C-alpha cells in the first residue's frame, strides 16, 4: 500500500504551474514542459497573434518555448510561470518589431482597416466589431497592455512583463480604454 502510494506520488502530474516548472528544472523531464505547453501554449500564441500575423506568431511562440527550455535555470520563481513566459514572448516580439522597424508608438494607419468610413464603422460596430480591428487602432504599448489585462494579468504582473512602472501601466490602460470607448460610442460606464 505504501509502495503504491509512493508510485502514484512519483507519477502523478503536478497541477500547479509553478510546481510544474520547478519539477521541470529539477528533473529535466520533458513531460512537465509538455504540460506547461498544453496549459499556456494557446494563451501565448493568441497574445502574439493579436499583435502580428499568424506565421510570425507561430514562429515567436516556438522561439519562446525554446527559450523556456534553454533558460529554465533563470526562472527564479519570483513571478508566476505565465508572467515569465509572456515576458519572454513579448521581448521576442519587440526584437522582431525592431528588426522590421515596426516600432509603433502611434497608431499605424497602414494596419487599420482601409474601409473605415463612419457608415461602415457603425455597421461593423453593430455586427460585433472584431477585436483585431479595435486593437489595431491602439499604439503598440497600449495595445499590449490591454491584451495582457484581458488575458487576466494584474497591474503588477503587466508591469513585470512590460518592464514598466505600475503607474505607467495604468496610464496606458486608461488611454487605451478612451480610444476604444470612442469606437464603441461612449459605452465605457
Amino acid at each position: 500500500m505504501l509502495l503504491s502510494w509512493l508510485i502514484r506520488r512519483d507519477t502523478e502530474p503536478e497541477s500547479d504551474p509553478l510546481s510544474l516548472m520547478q519539477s521541470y528544472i529539477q528533473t529535466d523531464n520533458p513531460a512537465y514542459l509538455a504540460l506547461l505547453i498544453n496549459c499556456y501554449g494557446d494563451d501565448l500564441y493568441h497574445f502574439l497573434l493579436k499583435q502580428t500575423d499568424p506565421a510570425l506568431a507561430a514562429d515567436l511562440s516556438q522561439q519562446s518555448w525554446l527559450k523556456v527550455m534553454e533558460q529554465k535555470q533563470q526562472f527564479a520563481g519570483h513571478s508566476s510561470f505565465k508572467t515569465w513566459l509572456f515576458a519572454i514572448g513579448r521581448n521576442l516580439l519587440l526584437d522582431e518589431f525592431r528588426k522590421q522597424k515596426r516600432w509603433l508608438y502611434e497608431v499605424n494607419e497602414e494596419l487599420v482597416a482601409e474601409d473605415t468610413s463612419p457608415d461602415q464603422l457603425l455597421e461593423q460596430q453593430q455586427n460585433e466589431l472584431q477585436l483585431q480591428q479595435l486593437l489595431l487602432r491602439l499604439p503598440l504599448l497600449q495595445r499590449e497592455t490591454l491584451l495582457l489585462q484581458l488575458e487576466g494579468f494584474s497591474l503588477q504582473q503587466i508591469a513585470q512583463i512590460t518592464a514598466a512602472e505600475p503607474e505607467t501601466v495604468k496610464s496606458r490602460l486608461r488611454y487605451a480604454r478612451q480610444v476604444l470607448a470612442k469606437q464603441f460610442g461612449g459605452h465605457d460606464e
Partner: protein
Amino acid sequence: MSKLDEKLQQLYQQSKTEHPMPQQLKQQLLQLTSKPKAKNWKSLWPAMQGLAASVALIWLAQQLWWQPAYYQIVLQSDTTYHQVQLHSLAKNETLPEQTAYQQRYQQYQHARQQLDHSNSLVGQLRFADQQWQIEVCDQLLVKIDQQLALELQQDQPWLAGQWVELKTGQQGQILAVQSGKQPLHCSS
C-alpha cells in the same frame, strides 16, 4: 465591470477560442521537448578530466615501457675515416616490463650524472643514405639511426651542414647534440 470591459472580454475570449495555437506547432513543440538534448559541457567536465588523466598515464607508460631499452654502438670499418660508429636504440622485448622501466630510469639518472662530465666533440651534420651523420674532421664518422635521431631532435631540429657539438657519455653514447661553432682547424 463596465460595458466596455464586458464587451472587450467577450470579444477577447471569442477570439481565443477561434484562434488556438496551430496543432502542427503544438506537435512540433512537443516533439522538441521529447528530443534528447546535448549534454551540458559542465556536466561532462569530470569525465573529460578523467579522460585527460588516462591519456596522460598511457603516454607516460608508453614513454617508460614501450621505448627501446638499449643504447647500442656498433663500430664499423671504413677506409676514409679512422673510425665509424653506428649509434642506435635497440629493442629488447625479452626483458620484463618492470626491468625495462628500471633500466631506462637508471639510464636517465646515469645520463644526468654524466652530462657534466661528458666528452665533447665538434662535427658537421649531414644527411646521407637516409641517415643522419656527424662528421668529426676525417677522424670520426658518427652514424645515428632514425629512432635515436628523432629523440635527439626533440628540442631542436637538425639542419644538414650545421656545425654541432656532440656530447658523449663515458661509454661513448651520445647524450646530446647541440648547436656548435666550426672549429678553427682539424687536428690530423
